[in-house]
């Protein structure tokens, strides 16, 4: 419940970002006496959380950062869930060569160190928040795919599936009508942690300098704060809030997935 509440708040913020934000998050602002509005502490001159070293409003960035976070998180989660589910269903139901190929692909994906892979990919492509999503789609279906496959293997031998087959139902119908609904909770579970992974990964990538500095995200905010030595400046109002927001969203993902124990479980079944 707590998780859902947190999400609703963030979704609300993301949707009404234009109304909530007090400034344009990327605009370089000036003080009334035409000086650059940089490093202004919270509360002064109408800057709720102060400004960055480049004179941008931190509060507004935080608000707009919600959009990127939800966007990255939800797309990545959908990708991981959809790809993983499809792979699991197909491999588990059809078996044979398809299964062998898909599971070997999963083996390869398990051999790819994720964060280094995102770094290489980000260097290869233009800096963009979508690199993280792409990398997740390419690699992180492995966990959900494998677990769902083993689930499908047991489901396939169940009586009602056998019955459907005998009754002449098509493969597609059996897979989507009879088997898929039973593995959806698993897909949902893996999707939920993927939200957190995506947001954390985006933050790490931005921190390492491979992010897209044109996009306002909590990751690029932290990167900006770090590159501008916010800690040495004592600008905690700049460095702490994006971190808290990340934690809240990621934890909310954990809560929502309910069976969080299983999420943090390494699935060893193959």
């Amino acid at each position: 419940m707590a998780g859902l509440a947190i999400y609703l708040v963030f979704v609300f913020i993301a949707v009404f970002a234009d109304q909530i934000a007090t400034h344009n998050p990327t605009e370089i602002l000036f003080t009334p006496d035409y000086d650059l509005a940089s490093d202004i502490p919270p509360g002064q001159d109408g800057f709720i959380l102060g400004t960055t070293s480049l004179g941008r409003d931190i509060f507004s960035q935080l608000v707009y950062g919600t959009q990127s976070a939800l966007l990255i998180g939800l797309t990545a989660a959908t990708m991981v869930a959809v790809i993983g589910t499809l792979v699991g269903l197909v491999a588990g139901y059809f078996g044979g060569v398809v299964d062998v190929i898909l599971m070997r692909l999963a083996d390869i994906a398990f051999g790819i160190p994720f964060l280094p892979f995102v770094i290489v990919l980000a260097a290869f492509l233009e800096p963009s928040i979508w690199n993280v999503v792409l990398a997740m789609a390419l690699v992180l279906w492995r966990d959900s795919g494998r677990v769902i496959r083993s689930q499908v293997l047991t489901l396939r031998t169940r009586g009602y599936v056998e019955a459907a087959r005998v009754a002449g139902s098509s493969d597609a119908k059996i897979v989507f009508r009879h088997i898929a609904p039973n593995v959806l909770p698993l897909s949902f579970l893996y999707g939920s942690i993927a939200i957190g992974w995506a947001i954390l990964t985006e933050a790490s990538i931005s921190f390492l300098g491979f992010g897209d500095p044109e996009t306002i995200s909590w990751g690029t905010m932290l990167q900006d704060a770090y590159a501008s030595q916010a800690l040495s400046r004592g600008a905690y109002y700049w460095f702490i809030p994006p971190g808290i927001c990340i934690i809240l969203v990621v934890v909310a993902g954990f809560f929502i997935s309910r069976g969080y124990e299983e999420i943090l479980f390494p699935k060893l079944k193959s």
Partner: protein
Amino acid sequence: MRRFFTPLTVAFAVSTAIATPALSAGEPIRELHLLTRPQAAQPQEFQFIQLIAQEWRKLGLEIEVDVMPWEQMADVVWYNRDDWDMTGWQMVGRPERSDPDEIVYNLFHSSTADSGYNFIGYENPEFDKVAEAQRVETDAAARRALIDEAQAILAADQPNAMLAHPFNTFAYDKTVWDPSSVVEQGGIGIRNTWTFLSLAPLGDQKDIILNSADNIQAINPLFISGATDSWITELVWDRLLRIGPDGLPQPWAAEAYDWVDDTTVEVVLRDAMMWHDGKPVTAEDVKFSFEAPLGDEAPMYKPFVTSIDSIEIVDDQTLLFKLKEPAAAFVTATLAKVNIIPKHIWEPILSNLGSTDDNAESYQEETPIGSGPYKFASWSTNEEVVLEGNGDHFSAPKAERWILRIVPNTEAALGMLRSGEINFLSDFTADPEILETTATEDGDLDVVKTVDIGFRYIAFNNRRPPFNDPAFRNALSTAVNRDLIIRAAFKDNAVKSNSVVSPALDFWHNEATLEMDSGLERAKEILAAAGYEVIDGRLHYPDGTSETLGK
């Protein structure tokens, strides 16, 4: 008639831009791309690019800022010279650049436009003449007049929008090092060889511990590698001459040097110099050092020695350098540049390398041997390099050891300076304001700021319209509020610039270049005078000019 903003420079204005035949009258200017490096790598550049882009948009231009890492940017700017519009760029200050020749000639002479340093494609025959003349002029006052003229031409043409000469900011712990022993080198700052030799310890801590954000690439006297690496090579190896704190070459391993005639230099070696392995430094070693790069094994040093026709050993201490033709820069560019290396070590190495694909640049000595004031002691990958003071050297350092720590995290470097983990902050690219606050709070730190020889600017691709029009470039440059940039991006830790010759080079700098107009209104006037028009908020070319590069 085109108007220029500096009356002084009108005389040097180039012809107007070549207008293409009219298809339709004055098409809108395409979206212009401005390249910059990521904030993490270049916070100041990133900031001033954002500020400037915002100003230029007010002229009716569509400016797209493209952020890319240095390697990618270098690839575009250097190797695809026709494909970019504008880029943030910098020239870094090096002791050799104390002579304006490199920057004035290489950056703007038309002969270097195809593949050399004139990557912006600036071509002006008037300028070429002046740049060539100063090269062979040996009378200092006459040469200064030529350098002044060159700067004036550039100010009129604005091939680049010059922005700032930043301060080099370094700090040290004044409870560890005697402040009077710190040497400030003009245009370079206190992080220099002279400081590392003269720093005198006040207490028990006798090790200079300094930081670098970059890893050490190589410790190799025949390879010009990363900037940090050169701090080490300058200490481990001697050169015949060294650029002094005043920017002029002074005798070093050579006791004296003398121009016998236009093409002959006589060099007298110092007595009793020793390699770090105990063998004596001989005239043979010196001859070898200048001849080694002539083959293909040290390509980066080759350009510095090609002017030498022959080297003759007169006696144990004396050598004669015979040049192919007169070259005024030989002393600075060659004698003060080439490292003296031991023949007994490098001769066999080079002859082995001769039969392989590799050259001396990929050869890393286990224990580098030079004759310099510091000896190599140890190197642990990506963590530190330790040098030991060479007590037998003619200019033996007062410090015991010189320890370079690799610290990629700037905040951590500041923390280390306060805690004493380092006692000399030799690499600091962040906001100097923070450093000063830190120093004030700490009380033990001394921060020293020096105007750099190097500079920051926005390079225009002079090959591509609309940047082929000096009036357009002038307008853009005029629109930039340099005072704001200095204040906002550099936090007042830079001086504004309108010349590639830094005020740090007092003798050569042309002060008059700074008498320039500034402001959006003036920029709009320049554009209007040149026939540019704003229609529906969008800047259009002058009548009859069409956009040839629309993407």
